[in-house]
């Protein structure tokens, strides 16, 4: 019987082509949309994690309360000891120190006189340790416009926009003016090793990147760090695991009343990312719901039209002794077949489009310029395991639902009028 139905579906284009088209389009949109939103949200979360929040972050309690001000006077002391503890206690994460600072970059002329000055945000990260992952994590090698990564102490990267504004070249000296963690004035000279453009307005406006040891030396922060960031070694943020980690870590310092005692926050707790993560997690569900609803209405209508067109067929089948339940069941089986064909087609097309968007992305640089939020310029889709099956949910469900609704008419059919109906 299935084979018989399948032949009918293949041959009767009115019965199959339109529903398959509708489902393929819906599934295509679901797959692409799902991969796209997953990619965009993941990119935004990754950018924030890599540049700012980590998957988890350890700070002093006092620093955490004023984190937006980058208060290095409240930084963690004995940072290397804490780092050892974290590495030993939580080997599933890679722990790195960072120092955020603000300051003024002074650009001298040939005589050493100030040629120009500009505000800059700075970060001290681990450039120079053997096997350091920080440059790759922040995609610095891919963001270099001119020059190279710092290879020795005293070298710095500055944002390309800043460099162009002040005519700074590779190898030129710049001076960082800032404040030490004790409130004193800090001066440090650096040689520009390269210029970078991250595609994020917040960073490209004016920034300086130096090695963590240089930052500690310049800001008088020996064995201190503003933040210690933890990254899951899988590279993916795991909210539940991070929560367990945070709870366990903070419990150890629960009874410590020192405002400099360390405290751990997870990514969700920072920069208002909780809402983004919730939205990212519910986006697939929202998309499925929208497409199921829209496609079900279209397919219900298609089913009703098909039911009218196949009125005689159902009548003759009833007269021949096929039970209403059986006709209804075959209608559902047909819808599963059509739904599967449409879902496979839509998923394949959707995967192809999602792959293209994953590899090439769409540049929204102009749209995101001027925003203060940390987000990438090029948005990409991301294909995950669910991309392969997510389209089947609306594809199959809406087809079956549409047919199940329209097929109810079979039960209302009066066999007593079949002779009259089938004689017209």
């Amino acid at each position, binding site marked *: *019987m299935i084979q*018989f139905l399948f*032949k*009918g579906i293949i*041959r*009767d284009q009115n*019965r199959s082509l339109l529903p398959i088209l509708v489902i393929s389009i819906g599934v295509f949109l679901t797959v692409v949309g799902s991969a796209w939103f997953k990619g965009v949200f993941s990119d935004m979360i990754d950018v924030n994690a890599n540049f700012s929040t980590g998957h988890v972050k350890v700070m002093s309690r006092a620093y955490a309360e004023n984190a937006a001000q980058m208060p290095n006077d409240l930084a963690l002391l004995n940072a290397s000891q804490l780092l050892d503890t974290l590495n030993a206690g939580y080997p599933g994460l890679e722990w790195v120190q960072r120092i955020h600072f603000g300051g003024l970059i002074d650009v001298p002329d040939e005589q050493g006189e100030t040629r120009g000055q500009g505000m800059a945000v700075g970060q001290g990260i681990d450039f120079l340790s053997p096997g350091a992952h920080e440059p790759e994590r922040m995609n610095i090698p891919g963001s270099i416009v001119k020059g190279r990564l710092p290879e020795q102490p005293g070298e710095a990267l500055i944002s390309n926009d800043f460099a162009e504004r002040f005519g700074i070249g590779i190898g030129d000296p710049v001076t960082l003016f800032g404040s030490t963690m004790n409130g004193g004035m800090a001066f440090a000279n650096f040689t520009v090793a390269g210029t970078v453009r991250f595609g994020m307005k917040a960073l490209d406006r004016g920034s300086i990147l130096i090695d963590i040891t240089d930052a500690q030396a310049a800001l008088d922060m020996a064995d201190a760090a503003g933040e210690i960031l933890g990254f899951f070694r899988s590279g993916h943020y795991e909210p539940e695991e991070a929560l367990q980690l945070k709870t366990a870590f903070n419990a150890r310092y629960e009874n410590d009343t020192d405002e400099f005692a360390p405290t751990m926050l997870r990514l969700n707790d920072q920069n208002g990312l909780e809402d983004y993560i919730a939205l990212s997690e519910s986006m697939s569900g929202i998309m499925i719901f929208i497409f199921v609803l829209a496609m079900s209405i279209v397919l219900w209508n298609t089913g009703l039209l098909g039911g009218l067109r196949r009125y*005689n*067929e159902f*009548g*003759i*089948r*009833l*007269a*021949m*002794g*096929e*039970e*209403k339940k*059986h006709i209804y069941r075959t209608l559902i089986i047909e819808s599963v077949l059509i739904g599967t064909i449409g879902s496979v087609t839509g998923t394949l097309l959707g995967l192809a489009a999602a792959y293209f968007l994953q590899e090439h992305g769409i540049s929204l640089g102009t749209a995101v310029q001027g925003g203060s939020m940390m987000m990438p310029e090029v948005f990409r889709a991301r294909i995950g395991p669910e991309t392969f099956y997510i389209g089947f949910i609306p594809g199959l469900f809406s087809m079956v639902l549409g047919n199940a609704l329209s097929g109810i008419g079979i039960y209302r059919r009066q*066999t*007593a009028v*079949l*002779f*009259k109906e*089938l*004689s*017209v």
Partner: protein
Amino acid sequence: METIIQIDKLTKRFPVGNGEFTALKDIKLAFRKGEFTGFVGPSGSGKTTLLNIIGSLDTPTEGEVSVLGQDVARLTHRQSAQLRNQHLGFIFQTYNLFPVYTVFENVEFALLLQHIPAADRRKAVMDALEWVGLADKAGSKPAQLSGGEGQRVAIARAMVKRPAIMLADEPTANLDSKNSHHILQTMKQLNKELNTTFLFATHDEKVMGYLNRIIYLEDGKVVKDEAVVAQGMP
């Protein structure tokens, strides 16, 4: 000959507006195996309603109708579907073939419902198409057939499961004279060879020429029930 249909005091009423319309009134009839019988009468006389009830497509308001020993009024939907599936064949005024399926597949469908194995199905379908002289059209689509051929496929579809009773409502109404006689001869031949009982509802005098028994209906009542000598093709 055994009695396979027994109708006793059958009355059928339909609700019309606030009242009722009596389509059949106090009908008492019996049919033996192998009969070739027609219900004849003007429109509204109750011919089709009678076929509906015998075909277990409808139920009596009063009285009893027994088909192959089963009281149609007491059958569940499932049981009446089974009765039609196993023992009854229907031929309609229009052929009602499934347009996307071939002639072979149209005929085969009746056997699919009975879950008959593929090899047996194939043989039965080809036999049925041989009976109606359309074995060479097995691979054709209904749209490629003439009206007469379409009706012959419909007969093959009804006959393929070897039903005990065939019910035909104006089977020649859409056919020209030559095709009508061809169809009727085919049915008559099947009646003789397989001893299938044929019951017709008809206005057509050509059909009447083949019948062995004519039951005249008027306003829902049997006004005449006579055995006749079939004359066949003039």
